[in-house]
Structure formats: structure tokens, C-alpha cells
């Protein structure tokens, strides 16, 4: 089976390392600013869809307001940098934490809702956040947005070209992937999947389901906030138009099309849907049509997504432990 072979290759640590090396030398080969910009955008989408995957994939809670968290992160960063002259590096944790706080505030009352109801509440939240950006003139300058957000500065290096931005998003992406993999390969990750399968059964084996959902929501918001902060400093302009319902739907489509609860799947989904509008650019106005058709076809023939959760490594926790002893032997004796 081709799938089996691919599976064996994909789960090897060498594969991810090789991929990372390729990604690291890519900007030396690619000289075009446009291509780098596309890569950066795709990277941003990967981070966003991985963060949404924690809630909608692993925990099975349909959220269609993810762009709101992304927007909050962007505005927090923009305001901190513009009004308080904070350096970008100091705003990263703040953007993450403040956005996570919003996740907590939204999640606490609403995560008791199920399925469609939660979807509607998150939809409403997304709209409210956008309308606040639009109407709180004194803080956000409303529809005019916040221009002139400074670039990050590292020692004497000011991020002016795309290359340092590329490496920055690559770093954020790698941290996100590692975080998500570690969560997925833990009992906490299993408990999230259990909640998505059957909440009553999860409660009955002692999983505090509300707490699990809330944690998933908070971490999801945290990463979306960090992605938002990156966006603000990269584009150097934020306005309410960048965080609309359509953006939430795009991120959700990446997760669903890639494969709910599957980290490689979601990465593939974000790459495919992130590149699609660029690749299909020659079709001008018809490209959204094709984009839509692609989604319909996928859902009919591959409802599980590009790389569905059924391909997940079974008993990953056990397998990771089994790899350990050799490493211990080489190190100091226990």
C-alpha cells in the first residue's frame, strides 16, 4: 500500500528534520519577494489552522470565530507597539496571554453548549470582535485601521526584507508544531479526543470534560493571538477587514479539508488552501468558483480530509517510551 509506505516515512523524525533543513535553506534559493510572501502567508495559515485544530479537530467543538482571536492578537500587538512603544519581542507573550484570556472569557459560559449552538456563539463572538474594532474609534481608529506598526528589531538588525520575517514565522511554526504534537501524544490529548467522541463516557471515566474543552480553547486562542501579533508587525497595518467571518471559514476549511484531529493533515490542508488562491490567480474572478468546487469534490470523495485522523499513530505514548531506553543507556547510568 502506498499509504502505508508514506505513513512510515512521515512519522520518522528524520523526515521532519529533513523538511526543516529544506525550509531553512529555501530563502537562499528563492530570490523573489512575491514567493517569499506567499510562503510566509502559508506559514501563518499553518499556525492558525493548527491552533484551531486543537478545538475543532481534537476536542470536536465546532468554532467558526477563530479570526476573532487572530484579530485580537494583531490589535493587541499593534496597540502595544504604537501606543506604548514596546518592542515586538515583549508583545509576543502579551498578545498570546491576552488573547488566551479572551478565549477563557468566551469559553467559560459557552463551552457548556454543544455542536451547532457553540458554532453560533463563536460566530457571534467573531462578529462582535470585528464590530468593536470597527467602532471603537478612539482606540482602534475604526475602519481606517492602525498603520505604521514598526518592524521587529533584533540587535542592530531591523526586519526590513522578507527573509528575517520568513525565519521568524518558521520559528513560530516549529514551536507550534512541537507543542501540538506533544499535546497529541499525551494523556491530555487523548482525553480531548475522548471528549470529541463521547462526552458522557469521558465524564464517566473521570475526565473533567468542561476543563478539557476550556484548556483546548485557551491554548488555541494563545497560538492564534501569537499568529495575529506576527501578522500585525509583518504587514505593519491592521484593520477590521483582515479578520472577517470569511477568514474564520477559510481557517476552518483548512482544518476540515486537511483532516480533523490530524496534525500532518492540517498542515497539508493549510498549504493546499493557502496556495490555491495564488496558483489559481490566472483564472481571475473564476478562481473562487474552482476553490469552492475543490471543496465539494473533496468532501464527497475524501470526507476524512487529505490525511485523516485514522492514520494517526496508535499507542503513540507507549511507542515514544519504548524509544527512550536506548537514549538512557548512552547517557549517565541511572
Amino acid at each position: 500500500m502506498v499509504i502505508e509506505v508514506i505513513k512510515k516515512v512521515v512519522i520518522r523524525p528524520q523526515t521532519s528534520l529533513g523538511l526543516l533543513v529544506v525550509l531553512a535553506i529555501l530563502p537562499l534559493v528563492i530570490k523573489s519577494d512575491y514567493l517569499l510572501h506567499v510562503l510566509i502567508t502559508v506559514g501563518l495559515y499553518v499556525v492558525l489552522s493548527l491552533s484551531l485544530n486543537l478545538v475543532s479537530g481534537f476536542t470536536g467543538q465546532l468554532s467558526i470565530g477563530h479570526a476573532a482571536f487572530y484579530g485580537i492578537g494583531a490589535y493587541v500587538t499593534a496597540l502595544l507597539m504604537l501606543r506604548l512603544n514596546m518592542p515586538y519581542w515583549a508583545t509576543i507573550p502579551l498578545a498570546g496571554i491576552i488573547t488566551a484570556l479572551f478565549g477563557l472569557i468566551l469559553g467559560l459560559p459557552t463551552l457548556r453548549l454543544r455542536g451547532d449552538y457553540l458554532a453560533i456563539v463563536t460566530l457571534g463572538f467573531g462578529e462582535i470582535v470585528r464590530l468593536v474594532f470597527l467602532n471603537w474609534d478612539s482606540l482602534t481608529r475604526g475602519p481606517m485601521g492602525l498603520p505604521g506598526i514598526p518592524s521587529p528589531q533584533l540587535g542592530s538588525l531591523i526586519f526590513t526584507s522578507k527573509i528575517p520575517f520568513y525565519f521568524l514565522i518558521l520559528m513560530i511554526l516549529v514551536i507550534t508544531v512541537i507543542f501540538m504534537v506533544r499535546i497529541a501524544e499525551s494523556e491530555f490529548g487523548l482525553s480531548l479526543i475522548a471528549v470529541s467522541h463521547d462526552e458522557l463516557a469521558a465524564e464517566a471515566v473521570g475526565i473533567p470534560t468542561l476543563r478539557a474543552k476550556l484548556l483546548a480553547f485557551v491554548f488555541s486562542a494563545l497560538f492564534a493571538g501569537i499568529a495575529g501579533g506576527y501578522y500585525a508587525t509583518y504587514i505593519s497595518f491592521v484593520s477590521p477587514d483582515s479578520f472577517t467571518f470569511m477568514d474564520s471559514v477559510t481557517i476552518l476549511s483548512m482544518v476540515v479539508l486537511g483532516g480533523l484531529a490530524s496534525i500532518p493533515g492540517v498542515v497539508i490542508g493549510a498549504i493546499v488552501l493557502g496556495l490555491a488562491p495564488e496558483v489559481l490567480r490566472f483564472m481571475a474572478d473564476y478562481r473562487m468558483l474552482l476553490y469552492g468546487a475543490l471543496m465539494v469534490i473533496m468532501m464527497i470523495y475524501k470526507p476524512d480530509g487529505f490525511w485523516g485522523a485514522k492514520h494517526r499513530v496508535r499507542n503513540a505514548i507507549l511507542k515514544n517510551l519504548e524509544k527512550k531506553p536506548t537514549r538512557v543507556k548512552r547517557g549517565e547510568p541511572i
Partner: protein
Amino acid sequence: MIPNKLVEMNNVTIQFGGLLAIDNVSIYAYEGEILTIIGPNGAGKTTLFNILSGVYQPTSGEIRLKGKLVKNLTPHALVKKGIARTFQNIRLFPMLTVLENVMLGHHCRNKEGLLGVLFHGRKVNEQRLKSINYCKQLLGVVGLENLLEELASNLPYGKQRLLEIARALATECDVLLLDEPAAGMNTQERIELVKLIRRISKEMNKSIILIEHDLDLVMDISDRIVVLDYGCKIAEGSPLAIQNDPKVIEAYIGSSDEEGDDYAVI
């Protein structure tokens, strides 16, 4: 020495609108005892389980676990206090493996913390190893130790029931509630199940409260039987006493045909 009452339910009533589903029922179970609840369909047996496991809160009455009053607790909090259950219609996590299902049962006894999850310190690894070995041991008890990597949904029905029992045991419970554990099992599987339940109660010293329709099995396995009808306790006693109780005979013969047939088998 007087055995310990691990769980008791005193004068519990639950009302859904105008329906009195459980009417002033008291039951208890000792350490190492197998208590069976029987009764015609709709007698309130599963409702009783739902009250004991915290899914429903009783309208009145109290529940004590190891002598301590438990009130207004969510199901997961009760699991931590030592009550675990299985379901009438199996509720496993279908896309997870046999081992992962049992590990989730044991999850409530472990604490890894976010940093532990992210950085896999030696302490976390040791705990994981310990917990996995414990789960493997339990899977050995129910006879599924060779199927660690199988998805729960791929198991045959009888094995799914066993896995659910192993998952409940993994919570390190003192009281185990089994809702129709023999349903859908063939004769051989039933014999194995009876052995298993005895082993859990006598060797592991857990109280087992069981709902079952197969009266042969009930009479064989129970230390004591409680009979429910229309939400009321109509009889309680040893299997022999129950078989000869005129009230029980009346309740069963007066109820649906299926139940009547079952009784005729004895």
C-alpha cells in the same frame, strides 16, 4: 469484623416532571459484595445507576461513599472518589486503541501538568511507564492483553464489554457499577464474565452493583439481590429468598412476556 459499607443510598427519590422514577429507595453494598438489581423494563434500574454515578441529582435522599456524604458532584468528581461504571449500550472511544481506552480510565489518577506534557521529564516518563504497565495488567485480567493496538471499534461485541470493564477498573474505583454486562454475549463468554466479576469482587475487594436480565446468571453470581418495580424496591435478599418471594413473582408475571419467559427458565 463487620464488613464495610462502601456505598449506600438512603431514601433516594427522583422525579422527572410528574414521573416518579425512583421512589424512596435505599440500597447499600459491602466491600467485596456482588449486589444485583433486577426488575422489569422501566423499573428504574438504569436511573438508579445514573444517580449513583452523578449523571442525575436525586430530588431527595442522600448517597454515601465509604461513609462520606457525596452531594452535587459531577460524574468525573465521583469517579475520583471511587465510583466507576459501564454502560448498557457500550460507550467506548471507538477511534482510540484498546490500550488508550484503558489509559484514559487511569488518567484521573495521573497528573502530568503542562510542562510535563511539553518537555517529557524523567518523572513524567516514569509515571507514564508505570501507568501503562498498570493498564496492561488490567487488560491481562480481562484477557485483552494481546490486542493493545486494536481500535476499540474493531473488537467484537463481547470483547468491547470486557474493555469497558477494564477501563472502569483503571479508574482505581472501589465501587463498580455494571449495566447489563452480559448483554449480547454468548454462553462461553458469559461463563468467562461470571468468573471475571467474581475475581474483581473477591480478589480486588471491590463492591460490584450489577444490573442484569439473565436470571440464571443473576442467581449464580449475586450475593444479594434487590428487586425494583415502578421505581420502588419491592424485595431484597439472597438469591434463594428472592426466587420464592411472592411479590417478585407477581411483579414478573404481571409484566411483559419477555421478562416472564426469563423467569420461567429458573
